[in-house]
């Protein structure tokens, strides 16, 4: 009777026939993606696009708190959601600029507001002006407040990481550290712009406490890892139910079949991930990419991350295997898997901080395999305990393989 080992070896033989093409494809895609990313970040168009709103300010900006806020926003806020404050001597010049569409809206800082701010009370309002053709000023401010909150933190990320590290070294618990960092910024933001009549800021826009480069690194890398399963899709083509039936009649039942096919598939995905990480390693060595989270030794940090990607690779390979097992036809496999990966990545915050989504969507996103992988990566990057997320990923892997086995059993009938 055929042994499991023989079937496993034959599957390895199958998939390694596809390997040269797979690796070549990875290199091409990774190189193109990397080149496109560098080109976008360094392009003038990208920088120009970052200026989204111009808000006029009329009134006394000499107040320490207000000037601090304006200075901070105009000097350190360079993200896509940048707000630019333009100071005007009086309301007439501000209105003229508004009519000429030089600004989106303007704010009048009254003496009463300044007094209330100095007293840290909440009994005076700013006056906002906007044209009817402009987006509603309240909405603008809501967006901008969220953007400011995000950007303040984005550009304070070095400080956050340092503070977090110091607190960690001093033995503070994770919850206490996160709460303290959040509280610090909340106090700052509330004092500057978040008056209850405008908005109640409850989220800071950060994702799992990561710096911006680390956040995008984790999101894009994980999404790329999900897509890697496409590289070995030809492994799933040409297989017919007759083959599964024949194997089963010879004693290689569906559980053995699935495991013996999954292991080579995982191997290929692991090789592809290693190639990708090799490229990232090279880019890091060249100094084109760095993260605060691994600032002590970028190269060693990348190697450490690569090692910690193994469980993610195992889970995503099982997910890909299950999807490709369920779906019939190459077009279906690619289309459905791609749509699924995009959706999972989106709600799990791969492309945009998940805090912008409603609470229920955030909760779903966090518990999806993609969300668990992201939280796991965040823990890896911030040097936290990853045990819980490892267990969840393990459970997901087993679940995906069990589903694949059930589907395979159905194919025998």
């Amino acid at each position, binding site marked *: *009777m*055929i042994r499991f080992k023989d079937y496993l070896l034959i599957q390895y*033989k199958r998939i390694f*026939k596809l390997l040269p093409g797979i690796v070549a494809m990875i290199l091409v895609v990774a190189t193109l993606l990397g080149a496109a990313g560098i080109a976008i970040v360094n392009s003038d168009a990208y920088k120009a696009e970052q200026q989204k709103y111009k808000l006029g300010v009329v009134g006394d900006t000499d107040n320490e708190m207000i000037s601090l806020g304006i200075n901070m926003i105009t000097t350190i806020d360079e993200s896509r959601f940048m707000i630019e404050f333009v100071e005007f001597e009086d309301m007439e010049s501000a209105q003229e600029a508004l009519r000429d569409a030089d600004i989106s809206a303007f704010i009048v800082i009254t003496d009463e507001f300044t007094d209330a701010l100095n007293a840290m009370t909440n009994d005076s309002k700013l006056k906002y002006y906007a044209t009817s053709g402009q987006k509603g000023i309240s909405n603008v401010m809501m967006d901008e407040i969220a953007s400011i909150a995000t950007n303040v933190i984005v550009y304070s990320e070095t400080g956050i990481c340092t503070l977090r590290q110091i607190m960690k070294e001093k033995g503070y618990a994770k919850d206490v550290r996160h709460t303290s960092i959040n509280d610090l910024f909340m106090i700052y933001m509330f004092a500057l712009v978040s008056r209850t009549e405008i908005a109640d800021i409850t989220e800071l826009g950060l994702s799992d406490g990561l710096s911006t480069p680390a956040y995008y690194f984790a999101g894009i890398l994980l999404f790329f890892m999900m897509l890697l399963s496409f590289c070995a899709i030809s492994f799933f083509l040409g297989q*017919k139910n*007759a083959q599964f039936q024949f194997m089963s*009649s010879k004693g290689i039942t569906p559980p053995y079949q699935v495991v013996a096919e999954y292991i080579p598939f995982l191997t290929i995905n692991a090789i592809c991930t290693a190639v990708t990480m090799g490229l990232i390693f090279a880019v890091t060595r060249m100094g084109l990419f760095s993260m605060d989270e691994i600032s002590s030794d970028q190269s060693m940090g990348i190697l450490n991350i690569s090692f910690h990607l193994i469980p993610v690779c195992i889970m995503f390979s099982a997910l890909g295997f299950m999807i490709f097992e369920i779906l019939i036809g190459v077009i279906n496999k690619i289309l459905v898997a791609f749509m699924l990966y995009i959706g999972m990545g989106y709600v799990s915050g791969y492309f945009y901080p998940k805090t912008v989504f409603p609470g229920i969507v955030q909760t779903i996103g966090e518990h999806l395999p993609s969300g668990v992988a992201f939280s796991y990566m965040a823990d890896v990057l911030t040097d936290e305990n990853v045990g819980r997320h490892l267990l969840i990923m393990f459970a997901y892997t087993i679940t995906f393989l069990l589903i694949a086995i059930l589907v395979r059993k159905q194919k*025998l009938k």
Partner: protein
Amino acid sequence: MSKRISGKGETMIEVKHINKNYGKHKVLQGVDFTVEPGQIVGILGENGSGKSTLLTILAGLQKANSGFFNMDGKNLIKNTKLRNDLVAYVPQETPLITELTAWDNLRMWYSSDKLKKELKDGFLAMLGIDQFIKVPVNQMSGGMKKRLTIGCAINSNPKLLLLDEPTAALDLVCKERIYTYFEQFKRQGGSMIIATHEVQEIELCDKCYILKDGKLDPYKYDGDIPHLIGRL
């Protein structure tokens, strides 16, 4: 060449009261028949009549709702390991790994030494597999694939071959080669159950059954094709 051990005249294989339902649809209703050593049994019937279902049940690929499948008094439905050794199933479609060569496919089932021996003077040589041993499956003709499939199936020296339309869509030369092998397998004491539409295969059979409305009826083919069609 390997010899099979059951003696002639002894009831080797018993299929009793096999019932199979797909929901409310009764595919097989109390299917009973016996196969003696060296006997070829043909199962005839229209497409969708349940021939393949019967073979897959006997091959252990799906469970019957009830019934027995015994060989030399041993229950093969419960004893899967014994069934895997004694029964070989050849599906209608190609079950081969198409990216690999004939050798690679066979190596999965045979040890290297046994494979070389079989290719030299065994059943594999009789099937002519040695002539295309290095050819990848995706470059083979339908006849080559079918012969290779049979070659893979018989690795455990089985007593019973289950064949689902084994020569469908093959040319005459290829069919003849496979029939020659069947004769040899039969002479060695091996038994076969063949689900078929082919007249040539029906003529090879020692006895035939028609599967209709889930029930199996004995049928004696006498060359009268219109009569056969009328019975189906």
